[in-house]
């Protein structure tokens, strides 16, 4: 039978999506299912890894049914996933030993504080390119090993396995306790704090620093390569790619050349710049990370500006304040007024990520007067995403030494015209959306299709990229500078809120 499609699985923070793409990179079917967010204590965020697996068991076959095709017509499947979220499970039973700890979870903040005071703490950034932060997986794994009695022994024997979501799903797809393949890819491994950025292998010094047994870790593989064949859900389909969702979006935007960048707007926003085959260290608060690795070719690195809260602020407005009932209504509400009325929201809900990296910051709303309506607040919600983008773009320009002349965007928030126009206005460069807004999924599909020869090469994929929309800057320069100044003053007011723990 001819294999006409490639499937992607986008295992995100709020939902899991399955999409079938055809040879021209066009979407043929899409299914999606949300999973529950658990907040058992302040600062804790958990997912049920079994629920996520069940969701995939359901939406995978649904995506095939929607297009009326069988697994035999699928050339390969690629996985993109929420990064850093940590699952530990029993190799024999396949049962997680604890709820999955999500990247937003800050339970390890005290531990991270202690670790960063150790004299050898500098090895972390030197070897893996990332700052020590609760955001990444290693502190979480250490926390679980300390917290659950007997777990360390089981992990040392290799009876308990560690994985981020792609490892968990691949292991289950390939048979679970019955011969499941335990692998991760270079992009996901680069977010653990445990991988050496140059060797692309687990670093013994880092394993020692965090006290994590190697026996529990998956094998690190390229992002585009066949890891195994699915025995469940999509029987017989080759699993041929895995990438962190942000790296998958870089790939889906076909940013294959040094100097090409994209920004994905979802729960958070992540600007990634392809820096070629050499890792580049940032001096302006950006992360060094792996962009992708195709088969046995050299890995391609990226500089990343991570913004923790963008779409999540819209969700907060909807779910916690109840001012709107769907996310897109934020635009409707914002359009009821002409400007922010002098009001600014800095969403430092779990501190501020790039370029500040201030974990003690907390959110503020400033400029409140009796004049302010919910319309002004809605504007301030959207503008917060614009100004945070401006900050990471400024950092990127400073690190790269050349200025971005255009911003390629994707993700759910790109449906918001007011926001996209505002981003063009504050960056003073055109903002361009490609024809597939689900670029994360497209990137995973591309990487999988490349691995099995469904697509011959990267240049062919570039030809699939088309501009679907473009927003052109139109803001008065004087106003831009004044507003940016106000934003920066607002950010300063978010700093130093959480008091340092004494001792």
């Amino acid at each position, binding site marked *: 039978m001819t294999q006409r499609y490639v499937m992607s699985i986008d295992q995100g923070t709020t939902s899991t999506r399955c999409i079938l793409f055809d040879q021209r990179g066009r979407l043929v079917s899409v299914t999606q299912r949300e999973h529950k967010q658990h907040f058992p204590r302040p600062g804790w965020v958990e997912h049920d890894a079994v629920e996520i697996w069940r969701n995939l068991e359901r939406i995978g076959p649904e995506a095939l049914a929607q297009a009326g095709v069988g697994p035999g017509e699928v050339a390969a499947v690629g996985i993109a996933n929420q990064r850093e979220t940590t699952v530990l499970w029993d190799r024999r039973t396949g049962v997680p030993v604890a709820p999955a700890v999500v990247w937003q979870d800050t339970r390890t903040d005290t531990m991270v504080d202690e670790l960063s005071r150790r004299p050898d703490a500098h090895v972390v950034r030197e070897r893996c390119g990332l700052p020590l932060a609760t955001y990444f997986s290693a502190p979480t794994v250490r926390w679980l090993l300390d917290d659950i009695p007997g777990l360390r022994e089981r992990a040392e024997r290799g009876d308990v396995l560690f994985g981020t979501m792609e490892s968990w799903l691949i292991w289950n797809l390939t048979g679970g306790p019955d011969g499941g393949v335990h692998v991760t890819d270079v992009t996901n491994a680069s977010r653990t704090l445990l991988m050496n950025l140059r060797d692309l292998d687990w670093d013994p010094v880092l394993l020692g620093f965090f006290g994590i047994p190697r026996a529990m870790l998956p094998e690190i593989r390229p992002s585009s390569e066949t890891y195994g064949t699915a025995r469940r859900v999509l029987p017989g389909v080759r699993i041929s790619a895995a990438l962190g969702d942000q790296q998958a979006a870089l790939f889906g935007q076909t940013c294959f050349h040094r100097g090409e960048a994209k920004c994905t707007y979802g729960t958070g926003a992540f600007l990634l710049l392809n820096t070629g085959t050499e890792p580049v260290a940032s001096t302006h608060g950006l992360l060094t990370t792996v962009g992708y690795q195709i088969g046995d070719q050299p890995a391609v690195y990226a500089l990343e500006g991570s913004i923790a809260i963008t779409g999540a602020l819209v969700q907060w407005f909807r779910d916690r304040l109840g001012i709107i009932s769907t996310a897109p209504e934020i635009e409707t509400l914002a359009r009821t007024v002409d400007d922010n009325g002098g009001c600014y929201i800095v969403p430092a809900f779990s501190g501020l990520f790039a370029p500040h990296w201030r974990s003690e910051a907390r959110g503020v709303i400033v400029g409140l007067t009796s004049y302010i309506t919910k319309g002004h607040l809605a504007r301030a919600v959207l503008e917060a995403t614009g100004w945070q983008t401006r900050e990471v773009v400024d950092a990127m320009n400073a690190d790269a030494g050349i200025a971005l002349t255009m911003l390629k965007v994707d993700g759910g928030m790109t449906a918001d015209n007011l926001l996209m126009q505002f981003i063009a206005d504050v960056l003073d460069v055109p903002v361009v959306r490609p024809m*597939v807004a689900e670029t994360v999924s497209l990137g995973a599909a591309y990487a999988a299709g490349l691995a099995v020869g469904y697509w011959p090469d990267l240049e062919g994929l570039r030809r699939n990229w088309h501009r679907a929309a473009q927003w052109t800057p139109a803001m008065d320069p004087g106003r831009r500078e004044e507003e940016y100044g106000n934003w920066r003053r607002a950010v300063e007011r978010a700093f130093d809120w959480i008091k340092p723990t004494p001792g």
Partner: protein
Amino acid sequence: MPGPVQSIERAAAILRLLAQGSGRLGLTEIANSLGLARGTAHGILRTLQLVGFVEQDEATGKYQLGAALLHLGTSYLDVNELRSRAINWADALAARSGEAVRIGTHLQGKVLVVHHVFRPDDSLQTLDVGMLMPMHATAIGKVLLAYDANAAAALHDASHDGELEQFTRRTVRTHREMSRMLATVREHGWASDVDEAGMGEAGVAAPIRGYGGLVVGAMGISGATERICDSGGRPRPDLVGYVRDAARAVSRDLGASRW
């Protein structure tokens, strides 16, 4: 003339019940109050929940009136939400057809463009979102006129002496001509415009439906007549198929089950 539909009567009774008192009732309370079997009451509640008229509290399982009921008087689907829900399929339609895609809703006798995807040839194009288009000369407008009684009434009010604005010699001129054309649109389930809004320009559009089949907008492609139409001057069947499939896919995601 058939008699009253029992399940609709019962649904109305459930809504009245929920509108009274504390407004939060469990399944058993509702079934008992109306003398219905639990299964019957549950079935009706599920449907009411689906259309947004009833909501169920996750923690207690109790039912209350839904937000959609409170907003019955205002627009059924926020246009920004329509765009969010349609964006994937609009992209796929542009990629498949090779033409620009627009989604429109009715606004005071005109088509309001709520979404626009560029023609995928990377040529210079500007975003049309927020612009108004004439209803009687565009495929999207004709779909809205065919399925939205308010749109048709608004057009009627806007045009004096029954004369419709002429853009080319092929623009529909009279309301009588228009009614005939709209009957055809309803019969086929899609509309087209060929050299009617401007010479050399053509378009094809189909309805986007929400719960219960209510038309909430129209989605279509437009481009040069020689690309959109075959040698006989009729829209190419493959393009019509892509447009209808895409509009159906959005409708399915919006909860329209039968279309």
